[in-house]
């Protein structure tokens, strides 16, 4: 085809020239672009697949038939344990308990500032509990929490990749320059992309938690044990505590999306972002955090703070040396310290990304 593409009639039929859109409108456009991306579909499929597999595993574990098998195993082990314990003289039992309590006290004294120590010495001759054999009725909240906690890093990583590629792909395709010829206000453009990536991350987290809840509900409904099975009720997690924990997971996954977009905006390359993150996780979070300063640097690393935020505080292991030598002790890290750390790191990252995007040439 050849000829003039444009005639005087090619102009808009409405002669009102568009004068831009609001920030919310811009975020809406970015969300539309995020949704249209193939990566978004890949992430959704991955989340559905992960939750599906996890729910299936929970279903297998809580099947009445599986519970009946475990109850049988449990009964024989209890009988065997009772028989063995009956053959141990009472004074020997008391001596073993006493020794255990001395070790407990010694360890507790060495971990000043650490988490309290409980060796459960008094229970050392008791038969194992049914719960330790997994003989508990399927409970929705417990299953949901289990799936979500195990999926936290996967959901977070998926959201991170989604956010990183969402921004970096624009530089790779060269369409960022084209975009800026339509909306040249860089901070506004950059912020809209970060917000969209964060919202995308929240959606990934929300989907994961939602599907986990749905899967857990199905599992508990299908696997409700009959009255003939002597199954203990699962420990009840207070509803608001469980909900808080799930919301924190969603928030962390949202931060994953935002973080991906921030690093994508700084590095402008999806491959570069993935390389940086894998390098960081392997070298810094896994090696440096525990290898230097006797492990006491861990509160300053991402993993500890994410765990602390989601789990309402966490512990990490550090080496503590005294006159008797060095011991590995468990150290607490609070929820408050975790969320403050995450807030500061996120704020610094967003600010750096926007300043860099504002100042750097787009070629």
């Amino acid at each position, binding site marked *: *085809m*050849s*000829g*003039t*593409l*444009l*005639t*005087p*009639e*090619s*102009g*808009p*039929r*409405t*002669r009102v*020239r*568009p*004068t*831009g*859109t609001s920030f919310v*409108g*811009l975020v*809406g*456009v970015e969300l*539309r*672009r995020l949704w*249209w*991306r*193939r990566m978004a579909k890949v992430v959704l499929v991955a989340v559905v697949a992960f939750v599906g597999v996890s729910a299936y595993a929970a279903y297998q574990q809580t099947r009445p038939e599986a519970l009946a098998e475990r109850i049988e195993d449990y009964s024989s082990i209890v009988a065997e344990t009772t028989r063995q314990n009956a053959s141990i003289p009472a004074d020997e039992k008391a001596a073993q308990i006493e020794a255990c309590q001395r070790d407990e006290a010694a360890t507790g004294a060495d971990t000043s500032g650490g988490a309290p120590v409980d060796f459960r010495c008094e229970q050392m001759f008791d038969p194992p509990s049914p719960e330790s054999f997994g003989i508990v009725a399927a409970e929705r909240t417990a299953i949901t929490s289990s799936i979500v906690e195990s999926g936290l890093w996967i959901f977070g990583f998926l959201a991170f990749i989604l956010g990183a590629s969402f921004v970096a*792909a*624009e530089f790779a*395709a*060269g*369409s960022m*320059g*084209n*975009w*800026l*010829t*339509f*909306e*040249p*206000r860089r901070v506004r453009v950059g912020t809209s992309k970060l917000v969209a990536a964060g919202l995308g991350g929240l959606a990934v987290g929300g989907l994961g938690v939602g599907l986990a809840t749905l899967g857990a509900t199905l599992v508990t409904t299908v696997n409700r044990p009959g009255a003939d099975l002597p199954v203990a009720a699962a420990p009840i997690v207070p509803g608001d505590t469980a909900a808080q924990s799930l919301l924190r997971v969603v928030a962390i996954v949202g931060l994953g999306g935002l973080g991906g977009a921030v690093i994508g905006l700084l590095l402008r390359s999806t491959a570069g972002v993935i390389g940086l993150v894998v390098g960081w996780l392997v070298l810094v979070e896994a090696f440096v955090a525990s290898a230097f300063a006797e492990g006491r640097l861990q509160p300053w690393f991402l993993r500890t703070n994410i765990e602390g935020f989601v789990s309402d505080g966490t512990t990490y292991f550090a080496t503590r040396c005294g006159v008797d030598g060095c011991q590995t002790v468990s150290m607490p890290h609070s929820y408050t310290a975790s969320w403050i750390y995450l807030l500061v790191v996120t704020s610094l990252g967003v600010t750096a990304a926007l300043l860099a995007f504002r*100042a750097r*040439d*787009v*070629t």
Partner: protein
Amino acid sequence: MDVAVRTVNLRKTYLSRGSRRVAVGGLTMSVPHGGVHGFLGPNGSGKTTTIRMLLGLIRADSGTAEVFGEEVPRRLPHVIDRVGAIVESPKFFPTFTARQNLALLAGAIGSPAARVDEVLEATHLRDRGRDRYAGFSLGMKQRLAIAATLLKDPDLLIFDEPTNGLDPAGIREVRDTMRSLGAQGKTVLVSSHILAEVEQVADTVSIIGHGSLLAEGNVRDILGGSGVSQVRVGVASPDRAQQVLEAAGFALTRDGQHLLVGTDDPSAITRALAGHGLYVAELVPVRPDLESAFLALTADEGLGSESDRLAGGHAPGGAS
């Protein structure tokens, strides 16, 4: 003169691995309002860098630039709705369809969704709207880029090397489009290193080399100002004819069996040759072109190597 684009002492230097490269070295130029303005220079002369600075994509080290009287990039948001641009090759999201790409851009400027259909129709892409951009030919990509610029109904259209990689039909399509836009009263700034392309569509031209302005004005004035007006003479005895014409005071050069004679009066050549029994078999006025003008302009600027990188599109001295 009503000016659409103006730059004053615009300068941009790139730093790369410790070395400095001046891409634009104090460029001062003006693009008049309305019509097609050629932005001509060899590859690497700073055209794309200048355009990127006008669009706020890269920052100038110093100097000022204005679009419709508004300083850019500071006031660019105030005029961006009047500016449509295609910088180098069209760049869209490859896995999205043409319609999706346009819908996103329309959303960014608050243009109604119906406008997407209008511009797809205007650029003959309506039937391909649901096809992925990655599968488009270069010509279709160029059309989609033009469609994107039309979402705004701009007063200034900037085309950077718009015919690169296009087939002859595509080149003619884009050329006609630029002419049409200029005829509609819009300002079209077209950068190119292809002299013939600019010469065919441009009313005015800025010629740059090494990031500085060499000449600016109407194409006709530039051509006239180059001082090049020649006649190609074919004659049976070129050696003898050369002696006769040189003796008569004509400045000339040999071009194989032809003579290229500088004169504004071709009849003086026939008279001089006929007076010595030499009869002209061929007498063709060689219309001055931009390449000649450019060569003349750069002769004293030490830009010979840059001139070599200009694609003339026709033989030196040949009429287009």
